[in-house]
C-alpha cells in the first residue's frame, strides 16, 4: 500500500537579504509512508532549508506542499501549530530539552499541548517512549544531568510521544560520538521497520545516509540524484 506522506510541488524559496539568492529552485519531492529518506549535500546547498520548509516551520516559499493530503498553505498560523503538534516530530542537532524539567516532564510537553489525554495516560505514553529508547531509568532526573547520547534519545522520545506521522531530523547525530551515533541510527531504523515510521532527516554523515531507504542529494537548491 503506497500512501504519499509528503508531496512537494515546485517549491522555490529565495532570500532577498542581504542579496537576492535562490535557496530552493523548483524542488519537487514525494515521500511515501514508512520511507526513511535522508537529504544530503554540501553546506549552503539548501538541504536544511528544504527540511524546514517541508516540516511547516518555514512558511515563506512559492509552490505547494501537502502533508498527508493537507495543503500546508491553507492552514492559519495557529492551525499550523496544532498540525505540527499532532503530525510532526522534530529531532535537532541539539537536544533542546528544558533544563529545569525532568526527563519525563520534557517528554510529556507535546502531549500536554495536545491535551486529549489524562495526566496518567500522558505519563504512561511518555514512559513507553522512554523505554523504547532505552532511557526509562532516567525518567525522574533533571534533563541537564544526562549524557549527550541519553539527552538525544530523550529528545527522540519527546518527538514520538504524540505518535506523529512524520519524524523530521536536522543532523540528529551531529553532536554525538560514533557509539551514540550508532545507537541513534539503530533506533531510527527500528522505528521504520517496526512501526512503519516515516522519517526525513538532513545529514552530511555518510554512515548515516547509508542506512536510509532513499538518499536525496541537494546542490545549489536543486535535487541531483
Amino acid at each position, binding site marked *: 500500500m503506497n500512501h504519499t506522506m509528503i508531496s512537494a510541488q515546485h517549491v522555490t524559496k529565495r532570500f532577498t537579504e542581504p542579496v537576492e539568492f535562490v535557496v530552493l529552485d523548483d524542488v519537487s519531492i514525494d515521500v511515501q509512508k514508512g520511507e526513511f529518506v535522508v537529504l544530503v549535500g554540501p553546506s549552503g546547498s539548501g538541504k*536544511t532549508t528544504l527540511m*524546514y520548509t517541508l516540516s511547516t*516551520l*518555514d512558511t515563506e516559499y512559492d509552490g505547494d506542499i501537502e502533508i498527508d493530503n493537507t495543503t500546508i498553505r491553507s492552514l492559519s*498560523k*495557529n492551525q499550523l*501549530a*496544532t*498540525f*505540527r*503538534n*499532532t503530525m*510532526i516530530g*522534530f529531532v*535537532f*542537532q*541539539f537536544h*533542546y530539552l*528544558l533544563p529545569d524539567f525532568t526527563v519525563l516532564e520534557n517528554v510529556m*510537553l*507535546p502531549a500536554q*499541548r*495536545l491535551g486529549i489525554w489524562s495526566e496518567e495516560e500522558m505519563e504512561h505514553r511518555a514512559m513507553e517512549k522512554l523505554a523504547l529508547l532505552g532511557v526509562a531509568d532516567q525518567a525522574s532526573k533533571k534533563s541537564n544531568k544526562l549524557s549527550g547520547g541519553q539527552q538525544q534519545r530523550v529528545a527522540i522520545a*519527546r518527538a514520538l510521544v504524540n505518535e506523529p506521522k512524520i519524524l523530521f531530523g*536536522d543532523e540528529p547525530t551531529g553532536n554525538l560520538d560514533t557509539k551514540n551515533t550508532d545507537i541513534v541510527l539503530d533506533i531510527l531504523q527500528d522505528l521504520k521497520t517496526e512501526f512503519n515510521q516515516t522519517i526525513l532527516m538532513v545529514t552530511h554523515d555518510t554512515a548515516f545516509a547509508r542506512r536510509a531507504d532513499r538518499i536525496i542529494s541537494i546542490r545549489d537548491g536543486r535535487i541531483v540524484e
Partner: protein
Amino acid sequence: MLGVMFGVTVFIFQAGLLTGLQNYFIDKTVNTTAHVHIYNEVRTARPHVISRYIDTTSRWVVVRNQKPREEARRVRNGTQIISDIQKDPRVEGVAPFLGLQGIYRLGMSQQAGSLAGVDILREDQLFKVKENMIAGDLLRMETLPNGIILGAGLAEKLGATIDNSIIVISSKGVSLDMKVVGISKTGITLQDNTRAYISLRNAQRLLQQSGSYITDINVRLRDVDLSESVAREYQTRYGYRAEDWKAANANVFGIFRIQNMTVTFVIISILVVSGFGIFNILMTIIYEKMPDIAILKAMGYRDRDISQIFLIESLAIGITGGLFGLLLGFLASKIVGMIPLNIQGFVSVQYLVINFNPLFYMAAFAFALISTTVAGYFPARKAARFDPVEIIRSR
C-alpha cells in the same frame, strides 16, 4: 520582584503615614472647632462719610484719620438664635461663645492669651471638653462662680496647678480673681498654649457688657458632611457670617492636598521604575530562553501559549512581590507606629498615627499587578514572535 516589593511597601507606608496624620488632625479639628461657626464679621474699612453727600468721581475728597465705626463684635439676639438653632433636627448641640483677649497673672508670671467665655456644659457637648481634661473637674465650673480651665501649655508656662488663684485682666482694664478648676489638653498646640475657659458671665464682666452679649455661636451637627450647606443656610437666615469647619481650616487642607500630590508622584515613580526593572529582567530571560521557546513552537505550541507563559511569569512576580510588599509595608507601619515621638508642632502627638485602611492595601496590590502586567506584556509579545527556524539554525 524586589522592585515591586519595595514599591508596594513604600506605597503602603507613605499612604498610611500621611493619611494617618491627616485623619488624626481632621479628627482633632472636628472635635475642637465647630462644624458651623456663626459670628459677626466686623468690616473695619468703610467709605468716607463725605462720599455719601458729595460726588467723588469728579473731585478729590480727603478725610484723614477716619476711625472705624464703633461697632460691637456681638451677635445680637444671640439667645433667640441659639434657641432657634436648637430646634433644627440636624443639630446635635449649639453653644454661645464670647471670645476676648486677656492677660493671666500668677504672682510674677504673666501670660497673654485668649479667653473663651462659654456655657461649659453646652461647650462640653460640642467639643468634649471633659475628655480633654488632664486634671480637675468640669463640674466645678458650674459650682464655683470664678472657675477657669487652663490649656495645658498655658498652665505650664504660668506655673499654675489645680486650685491656684490667678488674676485675669481684660483689655478694658477689668481684673478678676479666678480659681483654676481644670487643665485641658486638646493636642492642638496653639490652643493649649493660649486658651482658657471661663464662664460666659465672667467674660461679660471682663468686657463690661450685659448678660446677653456674645460674639460667636458654635454649632455641632449630627452629620459633619452637612456643615457646608447648613452654614450657607444659617448665613442667609440670620444675617451673620456662618463658616463651616473646612473653610475655617482651609489653609491646612491646602497643605494636605500638596502633600498628597507629592506622595502620589513619589509612589508612581517608584512603580514605574520597578516596572522597567521587570521589563528588563523579562527581556533578559526571554533571550536566555530562546532555544526553549523555539522547541516549544516546533512542538506545536501556539504564539499565545508562549506569551501566556511569560505573562504568567510576570504576574507571578507581581503577586509575590505585591504580597511581600504588603506584608513589609504593614510591618514597617506597625514598627514606626510604636516609636514614641512626642512632637510638639501643629498638633502634638506622642506616636505617629498610621492609617491601616485596607483600601490602600488593595490599591497597592492592584498597582503592583497592573505595572507588572504592563511590563510583562511587551517581552511576552516579543517571545511569541520569535521565529523558531532562525533560532534553531543559528545554533
